[in-house]
């Protein structure tokens, strides 16, 4: 028994020593820097067909074994990150007690022997009494913002002071912040997920498809401890899980920048979806218009505007605003399916929705509208064609652009504004849950502060010893700084000059 423990102890000590060296940190950083390059040269997580275009089958096989197609998630890359983290943690634990001791131990009066070891020391002689010399020294230190304590001996006085002790923690703040980022990333991987949802306009869903399942859930279910909260969807070829609520896309649209003439250019300025959240009983809880950079979060699950697309062969519907001229109210909103008609009581007319075009162009002189299809059928300057009936008798046909907003005058005493054409597209939502993100963010904040303290703070110590040598005051100034020695040298010399003055 005795011997075995010895071996364990030796091994533990060796492992501890191995992990506590700066050399290991440097070696790991070198390896990480080198291997990270590979994943930027080879495109990650592409479709197999794409790789076949680029590489031969034998190369693909080799890359596959090495995990080069999803390199940053291979066991060996993650292991490297783990080693670096372990190294950081052990280094911190190894060195921190020593630093703590330095910080908490009060600074002592200097002995003759210690003086020899100090890089900065100078001696000056002052006339006048001890009190005068002491006052001068005290004044100088105060002027340089050093708070000092006094120590009196026989025929000697020492002013002892230090500044910037806290800067010794800078390196630990930096290292702990990196540990926090790593821990936060782990929490995210274990308890969070990344998924997506393509929501057609006007529909609701209660599930989300997962690109990354929560690892914790995966482990538990594979061990048979708990039932998996995810299920496999054969048609999507990926797992999905219930959201616990319903999310609905009320509306999706793309806004475009307009040129000086007020016409939309093809350059998108904003993608936005209006999402509504319903509980499982169909009770509406909230809604929000999300944009890129402005997501919706509910119950820790966040929905990001990520993409959109057309749903082929679906007839759309138009949302019109119809308002009596000179009326005080905002008018009525009417929804008409493509090819269908609706009776509008407020104007006693029936409106038929004849057609939609993704780009309508109005001839400025004749007022004629020509309907086009824009590239990829993007709704850049959408227009609708309507026919208005009195009873069953057609009165007139008109084309209305979305940008008109009631501007073109119609033959009768009301305006029709084209609000939205919907139902033909879906909004692509990125759906994520990351309970670790706050830990990561705290790490980020510390990571901003730590290096600044570490690099620009400096632990400075100063001793001013005044000795009475037969009426002549010998003042010895000595000091040390753990960082920025050139800067300290300047300050030190200044202090000595001011005392000697």
């Amino acid at each position: 028994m005795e011997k075995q423990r010895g071996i364990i102890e030796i091994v533990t000590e060796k492992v501890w020593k191995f992990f506590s060296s700066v050399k290991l940190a440097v070696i790991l950083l070198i390896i990480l820097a080198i291997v990270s390059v590979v994943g930027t040269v080879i495109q990650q997580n592409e479709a197999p067909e794409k790789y076949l275009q680029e590489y031969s089958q034998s190369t693909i096989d080799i890359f596959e074994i090495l995990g080069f197609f999803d390199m940053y998630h291979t066991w060996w890359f993650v292991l490297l990150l783990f080693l670096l983290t372990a190294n950081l943690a052990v280094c911190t634990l190894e060195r921190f007690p020593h630093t703590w001791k330095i910080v908490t131990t009060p600074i002592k009066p200097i002995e003759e022997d210690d003086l020899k070891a100090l890089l900065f020391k100078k001696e000056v002689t002052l006339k006048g009494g001890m009190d005068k010399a002491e006052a001068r020294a005290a004044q100088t230190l105060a002027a340089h913002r050093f708070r000092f304590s006094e120590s009196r001996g026989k025929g000697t006085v020492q002013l002892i002071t230090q500044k910037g002790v806290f800067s010794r923690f800078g390196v630990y703040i930096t290292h702990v912040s990196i540990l926090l980022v790593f821990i936060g990333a782990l929490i995210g991987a274990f308890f969070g997920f990344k998924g997506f949802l393509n929501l057609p306009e006007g529909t609701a869903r209660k599930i989300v498809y997962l690109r990354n399942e929560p690892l914790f859930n995966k482990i538990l279910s594979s061990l048979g401890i708990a039932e998996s909260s995810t299920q496999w969807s054969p048609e999507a070829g990926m797992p999905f899980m219930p959201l616990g609520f319903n999310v609905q896309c009320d509306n999706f649209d793309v806004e475009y920048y307009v040129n000086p003439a007020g016409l939309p250019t093809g350059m998108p300025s904003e993608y936005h979806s209006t999402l509504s959240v319903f509980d499982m009983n169909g009770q509406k809880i909230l809604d929000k218009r999300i944009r890129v950079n402005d997501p919706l979060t509910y119950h820790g699950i966040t929905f990001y505007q990520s993409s959109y697309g057309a749903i082929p062969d679906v007839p759309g519907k138009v949302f019109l605003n119809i308002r009596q001229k000179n009326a005080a109210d905002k008018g009525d909103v009417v929804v008409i399916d493509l090819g269908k008609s609706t009776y509008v009581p407020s104007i006693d007319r029936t409106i038929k929705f004849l057609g939609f075009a993704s780009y309508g162009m109005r001839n400025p002189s004749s007022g004629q509208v020509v309907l086009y299809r824009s590239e990829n059928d993007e709704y850049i300057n959408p227009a609708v064609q309507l026919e208005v009936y009195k009873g069953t008798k057609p009165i007139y046909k008109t084309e209305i652009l979305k940008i008109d907003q009631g501007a073109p005058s119609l033959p009768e005493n009301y305006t029709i504004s084209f609000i939205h054409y919907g139902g033909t597209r879906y909004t692509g939502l990125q759906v994520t849950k990351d309970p670790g993100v706050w830990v990561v963010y705290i790490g980020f904040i510390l990571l901003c502060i730590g290096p600044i303290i570490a690099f620009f703070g400096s632990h400075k110590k100063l001793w001013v010893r005044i000795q009475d040598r037969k009426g002549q005051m010998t003042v010895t100034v000595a000091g040390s700084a753990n960082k920025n020695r050139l800067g300290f040298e300047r300050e030190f010399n200044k202090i000595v000059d001011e005392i000697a003055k």
Partner: protein
Amino acid sequence: MKSSLLFNIATLSYLTAMVLYISYLAFRKKGVGLTASVVTYFGFGVQTVALLRRWWESYQMDIGRVPLSNLYESLVFFTWSTVLIYLIVEYHYKTRVFGAFVLPVAFLALAFINVAGISSDITPLVPALKSNWLFYHVLVSFLGYAAFGVAFAVCLIFLLTDMTDRGSLLNLSAALGTLIVLTPLGYALSSMGGSAKTIFWIGLGVLFLAWVVYLAVAGAGNKKQVYLFWSLCVTLSVGLLIAMGVDYLLFRSIASAESFQKHMFESTFLNPSVFVRFTAWAAVVMMFALVWSQGMKLKNKFKQYNLSPDLLEEITYKMIAVGWPLLTGGIITGAVWANSAWGTYWSWDPKETWSLITWFIYAIYLHSRYVRGWKGTQMAVIAALGFLSVIFTYLGVNLVLSGLHSYGGMN
């Protein structure tokens, strides 16, 4: 005054300052140095006004956005930050020697923009870029890049003054031999496409890194190799600028970043004509030989200025100590922004990964002083390598590798 006119004045000031700083380096006339500083301060002031003015102009145009988002603006801002950091160093360390190296970079970047006619239009932002984080992200990153740029210039001077001799012609021939063998091999394999190309580039990268690791570990003992590395760094930075300049001159009508990406180096190293390609590479090889053979003369020039190795090391360290937290801030703001836009703060796209690689390299530099036996030479090699990585992060990734940062819209 329009911002473009102000930018032109700034460019001219930097040109004048560049000439003055180089003459100061050559002739050591104090008045010349002082004039150089004054002209630089003036140019910097004008450029600051121009940047603010451009910001204001964008509001006039109802677009209202920070002037930091396209290739034109990022180059202008990079120049501005570099000059700012340089002026701080000049003021703090009371030496004007480095101006001869920093100002040419500032001038070339600005001249480049003018000559190339990179579109200076204030264009609206795509939705993904509409975020307050854009401002902080770009600001912090570029200030960091600029600090690293100054560190690069200073550490190259350190490496040069640290050299004892350049070694025999054998060293040069070995280096040139390697280049001459690798180049046709690279072309041949690249034309085969796919696997061969990727493997060649990965192989070349690993070879280069192995060499640099060797220099970092055993550099002090083999200064002739370090001198080759120095020559390579100088050739690379100057050669890249020239090659891109030629590209711009020939494709000046193509202004968008996207097509620029497509045509990168097509006028030189990737020209369809074998003759032009050969000439371009021959020019690089000759430049390398020239730098290698003339470097020692430059060293003697520096000797007159009594730049102590300690001072050069300290400035390099300080600049990296300034740049590294800024780079960290750049990565962090980018991550926070990505999280608000896409729901992931880290997705290992090439730009992110390369900024992390740069971060690793400078982290190695910062820790290397605590590793026994690592001294100035090795640390300077790492510092230089760090900036090569910065250049790649800034230009190479946008131009060569694809990813989220090519701003291709959504998804």
